[in-house]
């Protein structure tokens, strides 16, 4: 994640600051209880179900069989 920032900005101190900002931006996702992550995965599941029910069924099958 830090690599693309550094590649674009070409200045280590600035890139560090940007990386910190990015981490702050994403911090709620990686909270210790994993609630946000779980919510998001749940959302993904529902979205797949809504858009493409066949695909979601297939994915579930594969999950069960493995």
């Amino acid at each position: 994640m830090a690599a693309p920032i550094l590649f674009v900005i070409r200045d280590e101190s600035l890139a560090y600051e940007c990386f910190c900002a990015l981490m702050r931006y994403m911090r709620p996702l990686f909270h210790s209880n994993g609630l946000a992550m779980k919510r998001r995965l749940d959302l993904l599941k529902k979205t797949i179900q809504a858009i493409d029910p066949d695909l979601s069924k297939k994915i579930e099958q594969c999950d069960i069989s493995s």
Partner: protein
Amino acid sequence: MDCKREFPFKDIFCVLESLWASIPVEKFDANIDELFFDKDELVNEHRSSIMSSLTNTFSSRNSCPIKSEETLSEQSSIDEEDSGYRDEQNPTLTDLQIRLHKSDLTTRTASVSLGKWLTHFSSFDDDNDDDCSDMFTVFLCVALLEQNRAAIMNMSPLNTDDDDLIGSHFTRLVRQHNAQHALQLARQYHRQYMIFRMRVKQLLLTDN
């Protein structure tokens, strides 16, 4: 959650830029201005509320304003494809608007698929406003899955010598996904979803 490894190197900047800078939301807002330009007060109120939430996210995002500017300028010099891509987005935008206007007039012939999957959303549509960019990530994942839909559907769970068929399939596809197409699809979903949400809220407001 960030699809870093999935795309080819040359496309990764485009993807990451869209994800981190919440570009789809911004683009969508411009779109909304055109769409609901001549509508009533309620929509305007509504839009301003969304705008404020947007500016909140942007201000928290742009804690170092130098960065975004530099990123953008460097980006445009490095990645000419990116701007070209945005230009070719425009026809699809107008297409969608036309379709939506049609569906406004309850002639839903052209937009059957548009309405169909969105009706499944109505059950859990009571979320807060700040998950716009969340939804974009989700839609990007869905777009990736859709790209490999045929491959996934062809997998039979019977002759499995591997534990995680889909997982290994996607591992094989590292850096081979079509980023432009996926982003476009994700934006399409996102736009439809956001317009749908606006509609629902509008309806609720007019009911009250």
